[in-house]
């Protein structure tokens, strides 16, 4: 079955204390080449049946209204992942 992936990140202009904490841990492990770490969320919505434009529109709406809060977060990506045996079901 196809899976729709929704990616949500804290707004770029906001401080991301979780990313900062992970960045601090990397630095303590000697990984000093990473100047910034930001931490977001990835949702995987498995769908029964083909993913058409209507389903994608529905997911886009859910992503804006429930999966993210536009005051503090941005939806940075919505894409469809097909399993090998679903390859024939290309998204619309």
């Amino acid at each position: 079955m196809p899976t729709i992936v929704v990616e949500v990140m804290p707004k770029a202009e906001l401080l991301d204390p979780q990313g900062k904490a992970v960045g601090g841990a990397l630095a303590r492990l000697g990984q000093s080449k990473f100047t910034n770490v930001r931490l977001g969320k990835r949702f995987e919505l498995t769908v029964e049946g083909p993913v058409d434009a209507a389903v994608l529109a529905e997911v886009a709406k859910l992503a804006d209204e429930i999966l993210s809060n536009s005051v503090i977060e941005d939806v940075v990506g919505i894409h469809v992942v097909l399993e090998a045996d679903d390859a024939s079901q290309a998204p619309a």
Partner: protein
Amino acid sequence: MRIGVVTFPGSLDDRDAQRAVRLAGASAVALWHGTHDLEGVDAIVLPGGFSYGDYLRCGAIASHSPIMAEIIEAAERGVPVLGICNGFQMLTEAHLLPGGLIRNDHGNFICRDQGLRVENNSTAWTNGFAANAEITIPLKNGEGGFIASAETIAELEGEGRVVVRYLGMNPNGSINDIAGISNQRGNVVGLMPHPEHAVEEGFGPDTASAMRSGTDGLTFFTSALIGFLATV
């Protein structure tokens, strides 16, 4: 007066809020998130805790609970609604209050007796305070940083809708030291600190006169009573 306190899966301070309501002289009515029944209460408290384990975002899943449809409708009718901590987060997620709450800027959970200035004493929940009263009530949260767009902040400040502001220190990175805000009408108030934990001598914050004798939080609940009695 009957004040409803809603319990969600993961609420922690619902019974403390009920107790505060009783100490203020009103009847506490336990409400359940999964119903559509406000049981005819005259005011509503959304208590603190970690509803749904703070999954998705703090207060986000609770803000879609069945009873929230009735609470939104009641708030729009002018029924007083107080959101404390996780309840404040629910009010922002339900769009009854603007802005949002994010993880404390220092990354740590904080638990302390917090000084506040009551900057709006005309809301349904603060009308019993003197103008610019300085109070101390407990603050305990991991995600209490209040943020909003520059326009929203200007609107809140310009309309006097910053109800309480942190005094002495900013404990979490909130913009303009904002600890609590109200809607335009003043019936919906949300704040991160916990007035229900400062309502009875012996169990509140320390004061200059005695240990744990602080009861500054009680006035939030008696304010609702004052407003109610003025209407009957």
